[in-house]
Each structure stands twice: as C-alpha cells, then as structure tokens.
C-alpha cells in the first residue's frame, strides 16, 4: 500500500521542508513584480483590502430593486445580480416548459422593461454591478448599456462584470445554449465591444469554481481555468483586431477555496505565476498590468456538509483565511446552512462577519504574502505549478479545450476525481468530521426555507404580456432580422445589434431563438 502522504490534488508531501527545497529562494521577486507569485501589488491589502462580495438574488425585478436600494443606502458600492434559470438558459417567463423555474434562483428578466425596473432609481454611473450570467451574458450587457442610455449615463461610465464564461458551463454549470464555436464568437464580440465602448466594464470572469464544485481537484481547477482563459484570449487575438494588452486587463478569474489549507494557498500563488508567464510568453504582452491574475473566490460549496452543520462555520473560516493568505482580490463566504437550505439572514450575516473578523481582528492582512519564503509553501507552489502545467499540456495534446469538452474528456476527468473522493470518504481514507468520523445521531436541523411567491410569477407574466402588446411589432421584426443576418456570417460584431434589439423591447427568449436558428443548440456528451 502506498504510504506516501499527499495533498488533496495528489502532490506527495515530505514530513518537513528545508533550504534544499528552496533552490531559487533569492530569485523569487517581491510582491508587485512579474511574475507576481507573491501578489499583484507591492503593498498588498494595505493599498486595497479584498472586496467582500456576498452573492444573492431572488424573485422579481421589483423585489430585487428594493433590496439593492436598501444595500446602497447601507453603504454598499457594488451590486451582485443573480438571475433565474430561464433567464440564464434563454427562455422567457411565459414558456410553459420553464414555468416552475421562473424567479426561483434569481431574478426573472425578459425584455428591457425588467432591467429598467431592476435598476430604477439606481444611478448606473455611481455603482458597479456584477452579473453571474453566461449563456445570455451578451444580451444582459446590451440591456445594461440600454438602461444606462435611458438614465443618460454614457457607456464609458458604466462599471461592472459579466461572468460570460461559457466553456465551464458545458462541463459543470450547465446553462449552455449554443455550441462552443459560435458562443466563443459572441464572447469575443463582448470583449471587443467593452474594450472599445465600455472600458470600465469587465467583459469576462473566467470561473474555475464550478469545475471544483463538480469534483475537480485544486490542481485541475487551476489548470482547466487557465486553459479556458487561454482559449478566450486566442479567440480575440485570432480575429486580428486587438493585441493582448488592449483587453487582458479586463479579464478576471474566479475559484472555490476548499479545505486543504496550504494547497489552496499554493494554488493561488502558482496560478498568479503561471498566468503571468502565459500572458507574457505566449501572447507577447508588453504591459505588466495585462499579466496580473485578478482573482475572486468562494469559500464553502462542496466542502460543506449536512451532518453537524455548525462545523461548516469553522470550515468556512479556515478556507477564508487560506484565500487571504493566497492573496485573492474578492471573496464570498458561504453560510453554514447552504448544503440544505437557502441561508437565513442570521446565517448569511455570520458568513459576512467571518470575513470581517479576518480582515479587522486577526491581522493576517497587515503584511503582503506572509508565507512567502516558507520552505514548504514555496515548494508546494512549485509543485502545484508543475502539476497545473502537466494537466494543461495533456489538454493541449488532446486538441485544446473546445475539443476536450466536445469529446467529453473534461467531463470524464472531473467525474473520475469526484468518484475517487467519494470512495475515499466512504472507505474512511479521507476524514470528514461529523460525516465519517465523530458522527452523532443528530437529526438534520429543521429549516423553514424560502417559499417561492406565486404572485411574483404572475406579475412577471402580466408585465411581459403588456410589453408585447405595446411595443412596435415592426421594430421587433426589423431588429431581430438584422441580428439574424449578422449572425449568419462571420466578421460582424453582434453587440450593436443586440443593443438595437434591447431598445426595441425584444425579449431574451426572442433573441436567443434567432441565434439558435442560425447556430443550433449544444448537444451535451453524457459521461458518468
């Protein structure tokens, strides 16, 4: 039997580390210097603390608007929008196939009128808006620009982020619509459109978090995410209009932090170094800002468990600390009851306090990269980078990320890893406190949970019907027709057409259907 002690990603670990493990110690540049292993900025969190960004969203545009205005009154400067699944997958609320999903996991958006309501009395030149949206990201960006126009806010002043990372949707999150190749075109369109017209808006947040929660190891999560980043950059550069330095500063990343403390720290350090090298060496970046790996993260997710649920408070606290020692720019901490319920106000507040205690009491943010130079952490960072490079090379050999997804290769790698972890937990090889060790016969906590308000859905349907009755049918036909024509051939940026459709009050579903007619739908390879 293999007695080697390994990290969660399978990296073999010595019982201690020393100078021999650190041959290049003198050559590790300080924070703020390429390749940014020790951080993007010389003064770390002193210059700019990490952003505490808690994700939430629910119900109708009116309800969300009320919550947003409350948050802004309380001093928030940014909003985070969660969309319902029909809006994410490109169906209108009046589609009978999706009626039970309307307004359930986020806000329902059909035509521009819903966005007007969502941002009513919220000045878009004074706040930034993060939208967790992928398949229909280009359409929501068009809506945002159009609402800005209605408020008299010029495009150059709009700030925010759309997730807009479709590749991981095919593998793990599942809100795909069209096949990968036309989807990549649309993403490149949004990146060019933002670089040209909406310079303070981040066109993409490449998200590995969902690979991780689907079962990938830390090393796989980083490798797959960097491969996705490479794929998007290649798509934009391949069109010949822009150099890497014109758009790379608008690209950011998003990960899960799970429980293997030092490996998570090493993951972020290795990711920063690897991305910096890719951007400079592979894409020829001249500007160091292009090479910076901007990272947001979630602590929680699949690392949390149902039995003895209060243990999750402790797990999230350790994970949050690892994230900060790893140097992330923003963080969402999950609530302890998330494995089985929509968090209560109390549990959500506790999750927020976890970050505040970390930021204001523990002192871990006083000094940049406090673990830099640790024999162990530097050796683990090197080992993590090596492993990430190996995984990336395997995928390159297979023909790149799109092919690996179309062939189901990535899906299989993740399923294998998830199954391996599950087996290790069942056999007791991997310990989870309260789950396979120190168990108690505690029954699961009684939770009230959130009940969907049926009235919200009815109001949504009434509003949609009203818009369809009052908008100009001729404008709808003309703008959808122009979108269809532009989508049928390569070369034209679709964003201006989507903005025209938005102004004409075309719905999300109508725009998506026009593009489905041209591009078809993704056929999922089923692998388990």
């Amino acid at each position: 039997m293999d007695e080697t002690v390994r990290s969660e990603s399978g990296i073999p670990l010595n019982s201690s580390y020393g100078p021999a493990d650190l041959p290049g110690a003198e050559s590790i540049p300080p924070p703020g210097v390429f390749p940014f292993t020790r951080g993007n900025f010389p003064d770390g969190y002193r210059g700019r603390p990490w952003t505490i960004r808690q994700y939430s969203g629910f119900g109708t545009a009116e309800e969300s608007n009320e919550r947003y205005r409350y948050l802004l009154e309380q001093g928030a400067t940014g909003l985070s929008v969660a969309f319902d699944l029909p809006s994410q997958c490109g169906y209108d609320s009046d589609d009978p196939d999706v009626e039970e999903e309307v307004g359930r996991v986020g806000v329902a958006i059909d035509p521009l009128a819903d966005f007007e309501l969502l941002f009513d009395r919220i000045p878009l030149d004074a706040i930034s808006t993060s939208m967790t949206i992928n398949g229909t990201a280009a359409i929501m960006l068009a809506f945002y620009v159009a609402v800005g126009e209605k408020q008299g806010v010029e495009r150059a002043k709009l700030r925010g982020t759309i997730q807009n990372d479709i590749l991981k949707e095919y593998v793990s999150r599942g809100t795909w619509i069209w096949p990968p190749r036309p989807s990549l075109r649309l993403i490149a369109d949004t990146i060019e459109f933002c670089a040209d017209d909406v310079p303070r808006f981040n066109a993409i947040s490449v998200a590995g978090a969902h690979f991780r929660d689907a079962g990938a190891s830390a090393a796989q999560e980083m490798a797959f995410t960097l491969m996705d980043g490479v794929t998007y950059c290649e798509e934009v550069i391949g069109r010949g209009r822009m150099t890497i330095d014109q758009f790379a500063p608008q690209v950011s990343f998003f990960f899960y932090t799970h429980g293997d403390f030092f490996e998570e720290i090493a993951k972020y350090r290795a990711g920063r170094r690897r991305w910096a090298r890719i951007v400079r060496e592979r894409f020829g970046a001249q500007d160091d800002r292009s090479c910076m790996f901007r990272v947001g993260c979630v602590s929680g997710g699949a690392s949390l468990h149902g039995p003895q649920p209060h243990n999750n408070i402790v797990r999230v606290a350790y994970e949050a600390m690892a994230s900060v020692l790893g140097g992330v720019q923003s963080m969402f901490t999950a609530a302890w009851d998330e494995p089985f319920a929509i968090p209560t106000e109390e549990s959500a507040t506790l999750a927020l306090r976890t970050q505040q205690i970390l930021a204001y009491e523990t002192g871990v943010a006083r000094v940049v990269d406090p673990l830099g130079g640790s024999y162990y952490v530097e050796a683990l960072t090197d080992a993590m980078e090596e492993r990430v490079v190996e995984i990336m090379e395997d995928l390159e050999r297979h023909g790149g990320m799109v092919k690996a997804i179309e062939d189901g290769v990535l899906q299989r790698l993740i399923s294998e890893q998830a199954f391996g972890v599950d087996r290790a937990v069942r056999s007791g090889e991997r310990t989870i406190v309260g789950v396979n060790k120190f168990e108690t016969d505690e029954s699961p906590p009684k939770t009230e949970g959130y009940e969907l308000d049926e009235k919200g859905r009815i109001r949504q349907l009434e509003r949609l019907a009203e818009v369809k009755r009052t908008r100009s049918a001729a404008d709808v036909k003309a703008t959808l027709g122009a979108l269809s024509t532009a989508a049928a051939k390569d070369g034209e940026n679709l964003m201006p057409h989507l903005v025209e459709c938005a102004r004409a009050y075309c719905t999300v579903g109508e725009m998506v259907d026009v593009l489905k007619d041209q591009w078809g739908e993704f056929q999922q390879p089923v692998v388990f």
Partner: protein
Amino acid sequence: MAIRVLVAKPGLDGHDRGVKLVARSLRDAGFEVIYLGIRQRPESIAAVAVQEDVQIVGLSILSGAHVALTRKTADALRAAGAEDAVLVVGGTIRQRDVARLEEAGAAAVYPTGTPLESVVESLRALSGAVQTSS
C-alpha cells in the same frame, strides 16, 4: 437479469455531481443504467423510459423545483403508457416536501446526504416489488 434504471435531470438545474455518483454506484452494483444528462424535458424522459423498457426512473433536482417537475414527469410517464415504471427523486429536498413528492408520484425520495448504499438497496427493493406484483 439486471435491473434497468433511467436517470435524468429535468428542469434547468445543472448540478450533476450527485446524479453522476448515483448513476455510477448503480452501475457498479450491477444495475443497467441509462443516464440522459441535464435539462431533460419530462416528455423526453417518458419517451426514453418506454423505449428502453426501464423498471425505475430516477430524477435528480437541486433547484427547488422538485415538486412541479416530479408531477410533470409522473404525468408524462402515464401519458406515455409507462406508469409501471417506479419513479424516485433525489436532491436538495426538505423533509416537509417528502410527502408532497410522494403525493406527486414518487415511490421513494432521497434527500441530499442519503448514503449511496441506501439508494442502491432501496432501488433493489422497489424493483423486486415491481417484479412480484406484475
């Protein structure tokens, strides 16, 4: 003969880590497993259930829309003439919804955290009951 099971995710929820673990555990336990993937329409699930002549149809739903989707799938199975197939449901399901799911047509409910071994045993028992009754 191996027990034939159809596993699918109806609705738009894409969280498939759990359903894949269940599908794989059933296969390892000797079941014949057909996994359809995510975002399946109840009508398509019913059509495949008939075509493949399965004894069990398993749904996995983590979006909270489990009651409506279970009812729709039960209706679709009946409409397709597959009412003999045993319908079971797993996912993020609160205790108080278990009765509502049973009423909607589920023969068994496996909330998050149910050990895989119990799912396998339960399905064996349910399929045995089907065979002896028919």
